């Protein structure tokens, strides 16, 4: 199993954080992992992204020109990375901020109104968690409970945030699962 996922959005939407959660979950599951942020000039006010690789063997390149998955939290991210996603891959689209669907027909598209769902969970800031949950639901690459445990560790000092983020992950997960391609999840 070798999975490369690009997570992208505006600076401040928390894409680096959900990338780290995914990498941590992979590490706890005994896989090799890398997390690589794009730290170029594009970070300033524009899009922000990171690449997470999860693998059963030591990882060569930590960056990818053709990832298996994309989480796009805003339109510039979808515009930039849509074409790169591997055939048969998964694209999570945050429809709260993206007013178009992907043009691709050879990938699984998971539309989620991440900001609205997050607001219903108690905070619009948890949109990143909804999107991550949706990707987990559609891809099955890491256990939801494992990611939740890491969130609980990460935000141990702020129990309120843990509740909101857990709810956001669960809601996203359910939405992702509905769209899961056959064979992706057990």
């Amino acid at each position, binding site marked *: 199993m070798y999975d490369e996922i690009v997570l992208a959005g505006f600076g401040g939407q928390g894409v680096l954080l959900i990338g*780290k959660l995914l*990498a*941590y979950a992979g*590490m706890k599951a005994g896989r*090799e*992992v*890398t*997390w*690589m*942020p794009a*730290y*170029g*000039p594009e970070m300033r006010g524009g899009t922000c992204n990171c690449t997470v690789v999860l693998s059963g063997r*030591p*990882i*060569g*390149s*930590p*960056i990818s*020109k053709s990832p298996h998955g994309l989480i796009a939290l805003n339109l510039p991210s979808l515009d930039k990375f849509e074409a790169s996603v591997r055939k048969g891959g998964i694209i999570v689209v945050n429809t709260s901020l993206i007013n178009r669907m992907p043009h691709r027909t050879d990938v699984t598209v998971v539309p989620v109104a991440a900001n609205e769902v997050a607001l219903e969970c108690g905070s619009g800031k948890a949109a990143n968690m909804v999107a991550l949950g949706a990707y987990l639901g559609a891809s099955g690459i890491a256990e939801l409970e494992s990611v939740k445990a890491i969130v609980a560790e990460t935000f141990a000092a702020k129990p309120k945030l843990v509740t909101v983020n857990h709810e956001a992950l669960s809601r996203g997960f359910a939405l992702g699962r509905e769209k899961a391609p056959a064979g992706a999840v057990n």
Partner: protein
Amino acid sequence: MAKKLMKGCEAIGEAAVQAGCRLFFGYPITPQNEIPEYLSARLPQVGGTFVQAESEVAASNMLYGASGAGCRCLTSSSSPGISLMMEGVSYIAASELPVVIVNIMRGGPGLGGILPSQSDYLQATKGGGHGDYRCLVLAPSTVQEAADLVMDAFDLADKYRNPVLVLGDGLIGQMMEPVEFKRSTRLEDLPAKSWATTGCKGRERNIINSLYLDPEVLEAHNWKLVRKYEEMARTECRHEFWSPHGDADVLFVAYGSVARIAKTAIDALAEKGVKAALFRPITLFPFPGDALEKAAARVKHVLVSELSTGQMLEDVRFHLGKHRPVSFYGRVGGVIMTPDELVAEALKLAGKAG
């Protein structure tokens, strides 16, 4: 200690602390700011001191002084900042002091850019500052190896009383990977430094100096340094030879982050019926030339790849001789080659380009 997910830069900082380093002097520059950021919080926890100097020149001279006083000390910077430090590094090498310097390289020349590069190879391995001297140079390829080599760097610096340079790039510095700190040095276990300027009450004065106005004395000092570098070449060369698919036709020669990309390319080439292997120098000075010669003797084609216009290439050609064809593929300016680009180069060499 359990595995942690850490950025390369943070792991370098923690490794320095575990190695008994208690002093850091530096000046901020991307893409290595996480090293000083980490140590500014971490060093005070262990009774150490973090100093943001007024400039890189100042930082390198603070390092000179702290090392002269016998302390394990560190500085880190990125390419343009390392150039500024060269005054101090030359003096440190001349005075035979142990320091560790980390260069997380970015694209140059000049201010260049902030993205990963390997374009300081020649500066790192051929001296860097003025005068006849060398730094021992270690090049990690993973975050774990960055941590391990930083710990080794402090021991090697003490062993040879010489600056040790850990040469990474923006990719190694910014990437997160699981890392484990395998050993922890207790300060009381560090070897005594009888040469250090620690206060001379009851003993002869120790003098740390790089000024030798008598030419014959200076000449003798230069040859003494050379004998030290020759000893490093005999005992410290390190490399990795990676050949998971059997006898290879194509040998990649790459270090640091490019070596990782080559490994991905080597697996992809195996699926296309081309057997390739990797020779990865871990010490860049001393360069593991004898081991390279042996590895290259078994293959048809040698392909050097770097994030430079061909710097390590010069050492590879020197060791393999002018009659041995050596191909080169480089990307620069912060552009990183993809595994596919290396696959295409290897297929061309193997005569199997489609």
